[in-house]
């Protein structure tokens, strides 16, 4: 098979994996279906700029079109298969695909640089009540992470400090989060960057990782897992912490108190209000009334939409690996720029600043 045929075959594979029809690609990128067909059959050489656009659309890296196999991993293929089973939109599947490419890149860089993978405890669930076990696991994890009964304002950062990559990508309305766990590679979390309840989603996926029920998990709206939901409540809103914070407010049914608490815990109003009810802070009558109220709408009107997160930049694990790899010349600045989706100039600036700090130290 010659290079153009390899490129063509990969172009078709990537398009079919994402679930795009030739017509959709043609419409999105402004090329004719005939041209696309010529490229996919290896009869015509696609321009460089088109390969970049196609890579972005399909959620792959350009190297994929040249027949490069990133590190193999059955678990990553399993995640992609599950995403396809859920009949997600091609745009969402592309982002899942992108997540997988990044996970593989992280594994590859870790191996190259000799960085260890995270060690994560495993909690076996038994026949006892889910509530009791979720509470125990949440307490054990809080203790392990040295949290006491303090507020967890940014769980993503906390998990990244123990080297679990938390990658934020725009997943649209269908998918909130996902996780992958493999004994060889450890865990990776994907979170919808458009979703305002980041803490809650990350805790939900972390619960899946801790129980190791499945190797992969995709959190599609409407699907629920009891243990994980209860873990979120106990981990992010332990009773002692909630009681302590509640005491600061005169009246919990006052919207200001609820908005403040929601922003503190980084969870949804439904999760917050339900937790306050089960801890006896809100009675049944107020529970139903408050659950029906559109508090989120009010919060946006008061404080605006949460500022859009910048994908890639927020994963400290990825940052550290990529910058170290550039510094040691394992990858070039241009390569790093593709991984992080920022410009090579920004990377040059950061490396310069790091060097300045090192120079001032010596």
């Amino acid at each position: 098979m010659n290079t153009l045929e390899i490129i063509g075959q990969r172009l078709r594979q990537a398009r079919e994996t994402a679930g795009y029809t030739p017509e959709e690609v043609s419409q999105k990128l402004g090329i004719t279906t005939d041209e696309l067909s010529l490229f996919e059959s290896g009869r015509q050489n696609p321009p460089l700029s088109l390969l970049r656009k196609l890579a972005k659309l399909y959620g792959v890296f350009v190297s994929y079109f040249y027949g490069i196999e990133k590190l193999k991993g059955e678990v990553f293929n399993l995640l992609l298969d599950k995403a396809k089973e859920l009949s997600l939109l091609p745009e969402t599947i592309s982002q899942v695909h992108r997540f997988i490419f990044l996970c593989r890149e992280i594994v590859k860089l870790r191996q190259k640089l000799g960085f260890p993978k995270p060690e994560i405890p495993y909690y076996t669930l038994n026949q006892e009540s889910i509530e009791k076990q979720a509470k125990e696991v949440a307490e054990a994890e809080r203790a392990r992470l040295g949290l006491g009964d303090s507020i967890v304002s940014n769980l993503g950062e906390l998990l990244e400090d123990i080297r679990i990559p938390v990658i934020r990508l725009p997943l649209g309305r269908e998918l909130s989060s996902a996780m992958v766990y493999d004994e060889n590679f450890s865990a990776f979390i994907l979170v919808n960057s458009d979703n305002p309840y980041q803490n809650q989603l990350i805790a939900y996926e972390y619960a899946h990782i801790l129980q190791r029920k499945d190797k992969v998990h995709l959190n599609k709206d409407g699907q629920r897992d009891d243990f994980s939901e209860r873990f979120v409540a106990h981990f992010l809103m332990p009773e002692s912490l909630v009681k302590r914070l509640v005491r600061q407010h005169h009246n919990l049914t006052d919207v200001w108190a609820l908005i403040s608490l929601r922003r503190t815990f980084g969870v949804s109003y439904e999760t917050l209000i339900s937790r306050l009810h089960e801890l006896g802070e809100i009675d049944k009558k107020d529970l139903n009334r408050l659950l029906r109220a559109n508090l989120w709408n009010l919060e946006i009107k008061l404080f605006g939409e949460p500022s859009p997160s910048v994908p890639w930049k927020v994963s400290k694990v990825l940052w550290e690996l990529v910058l170290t790899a550039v510094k040691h010349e394992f990858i070039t600045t241009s390569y790093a720029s593709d991984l992080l989706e920022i410009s090579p100039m920004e990377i040059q600036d950061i490396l310069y600043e790091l060097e300045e700090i090192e120079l001032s130290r010596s």
Partner: protein
Amino acid sequence: MSEICFIVDSSTLSNFARAGYLNLLKTLFHAGLLTTSDVIEEIERGSEKYPELRTVLNELHLWLKVVDELTEEEQSLIRNLRINHEEFEEGADASLLAVAKERNLVLITDDKYLKKVAEQKGVKVVGTVEILEKAFNRGLIRSVEELKRIVIDMAHMARFRLKDSDLKRLGLSLDLL
């Protein structure tokens, strides 16, 4: 009109543009420079944060010509480079080097690894230090003071620091930066 003999990467274009010396490049390479659409994509990405890079984009298809359509041989070379050099798996380097090699062009880059592989492949390479040296020798940089100013501006504005060996080559004091 004379033929273009040089192909440039984003690092060198960016270093000169951000420090405010793109005109120096234009004067020195008056026949124009070639680059790839991959490089332009990087410059476009950078121009969102560094508006000075728009001066490069303003030169597109004028002084700065862009290669987007590749030959089959160039595509095969890109594939080989991506497979055999993990460092080139992603990014603009593989396409840049393939075009330089196939079209017998001198590659302008400050990327150390790209420079090393290019030279192994028989591609001639020059970087910022050679460009400054050439500009100085041709009188485009009129004095040592002006040369010092450019080197300092590159460090402060483009965050590009010349190595000690480069400073020595230019006859500048090592404690300049």
